[in-house]
């Protein structure tokens, strides 16, 4: 199987205004296969967003190569949709206009796009709020708007940076289910960042566990749990414990450092 995205020896160094350098990421080799859901999990500051930004084309790697379908990533592309860690909506547009932004700038057929936007808005229960502007919404509603703004653009590759963080448990569960259904139906390739072990185990085909200072990949796990996954099953609980033990030392180290 050839990979859709191939990263080899990726390094990202940031130089601050005062000249001090931070190594955000080092020695990262990563393959993303078509139709697979890859979960990035690791403590705060280990470079998850940085990796996503490079795949999105927002930032260039300081060293290493990064290709999509064999071509080097040069800049952002609508085929690679990003759900940002902050909702990052356009505050001067309404919910509806935000969601239609992508289809409009790409000149997509209006009817198709509106049908998809309508379906998505109903899915996240924001249809009644379509004429509100972002700052008239709750934080969770803004998050949901941001999620469907990206989905309404129907990207091949979806880069989701903690999209469900800040939502209540019930909404989160429901959206995880809806998200999975949608992604499987439209056969999207997904990179999904989370801090939540259960979310990772529920969604992942593949788990990339990262560790901090400097950010790097600690372990890659192909998760063979059968779907649909039951979060209360023994197999799930077994993985829950395993992943917890894998991540905790880094978190503790980070906190005492």
């Amino acid at each position, binding site marked *: 199987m050839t990979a859709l995205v191939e990263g080899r020896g990726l390094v990202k160094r940031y130089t601050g205004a005062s000249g001090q350098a931070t190594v955000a990421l080092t020695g990262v080799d990563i393959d993303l296969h078509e139709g697979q859901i890859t979960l990035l999990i690791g403590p705060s500051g280990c470079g998850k967003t940085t990796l996503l930004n490079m795949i999105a084309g927002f930032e260039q790697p300081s060293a290493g190569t990064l290709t999509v379908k064999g071509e080097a990533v040069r800049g952002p592309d609508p085929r690679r949709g990003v759900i940002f860690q902050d909702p990052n909506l356009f505050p001067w547009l309404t919910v509806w206009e935000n969601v239609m932004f992508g289809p409009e700038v790409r000149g997509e057929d209006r009817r198709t796009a509106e049908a998809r936007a309508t379906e998505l808005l109903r899915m996240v229960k924001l249809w009644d709020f379509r004429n509100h502007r972002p700052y008239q919404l709750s934080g969770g509603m803004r998050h949901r708007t941001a999620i469907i703004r*990206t989905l309404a653009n129907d990207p091949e590759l979806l880069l989701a940076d903690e999209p469900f963080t800040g939502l209540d448990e019930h909404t989160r569960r429901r959206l995880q289910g809806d998200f999975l259904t949608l992604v499987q139906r439209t056969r999207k390739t997904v990179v999904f960042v989370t801090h939540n072990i259960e979310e990772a185990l529920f969604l992942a085909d593949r788990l990339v566990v990262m560790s901090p200072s400097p950010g790097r990949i600690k372990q890659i796990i192909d998760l063979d749990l059968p779907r649909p996954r039951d979060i209360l099953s023994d197999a799930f609980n077994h993985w829950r414990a395993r992943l917890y033990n894998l991540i905790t030392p880094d978190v503790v180290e980070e906190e005492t450092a």
Partner: protein
Amino acid sequence: MPPEAVGQSAPGLSAQPARPSWPARIVGAIDPLAFVLPLGILVAWTGMYVFEVMPRVLLPSPWDVLRTIGEWINPDWARGRPAYFTGTWLNDALGSAYRALVGFVIGAAAAVALGVWVGWSRTAERFFDPTVQLLRPMPRTALLPFAIIFFGLTNASALFLVIYGVFLQVYVQVVTGVKLVGRDWKRAAAMLGASPRQVLWRVVLPGALPHIFGGLRLGVAYAWTLMILAEMFAVSGGFGYILWRGYEFMRMDIVLGGMLMLGIFGFLSDRVIVLIGRRKLAWAQDMAGNRL
């Protein structure tokens, strides 16, 4: 898909509550607190007149000034003494408003166009910005002799001065606004498929609007200032002309009447910009949790 979902904008806009008629809205918008300070000044002025703190030739009474304004507006209200300014008010007002507002619109439009370009493109910045920054510290009033020599004692001199001054005032704000538009908005737009041109029109311009609005407010006040200067020396007509003649004839009632008119017109034009800003920047006000 529901049929109502097809349309230019989001379908099924819920009915807005009926807005009150505009006279009712204006009365409703009047804030009593705003009148305290002006009334205080009026009382102090009257007191100074009554107790002759200054010679009455230098400080006429408020009602004297009001009468003079009356004569200015309508010669039939004149108190018999023939004067050069009676009945010219309408012409003066139209002339001054024309010079100030046409100059403002042209200057501001040019500032927005060039400012957006300079804020957006590093090459444009390198080409234009040093020259603009060189001109900026030069007092704009110093350009009047130059304008008169170039355009003569005409409207063109006044317009030139106003356009030039407004341009410099607004330009700086536009460049700042464009440069400070958040990187994440631009990234979001690019990731959704917007071309650089679309990012500029759909993200950078609206994102810079709060700063541009601030620039327009500074600019419109400046337009009146420079218009007055031009009228004092280069144009025979308008509030500035009347004001200066009043000074030359030692008619302080005329000077004060002219100043009052300028204040009122400047205030009204500023209000128009604020009202537009309140509408166009509803989002920024939501964001700040504050009203302009």
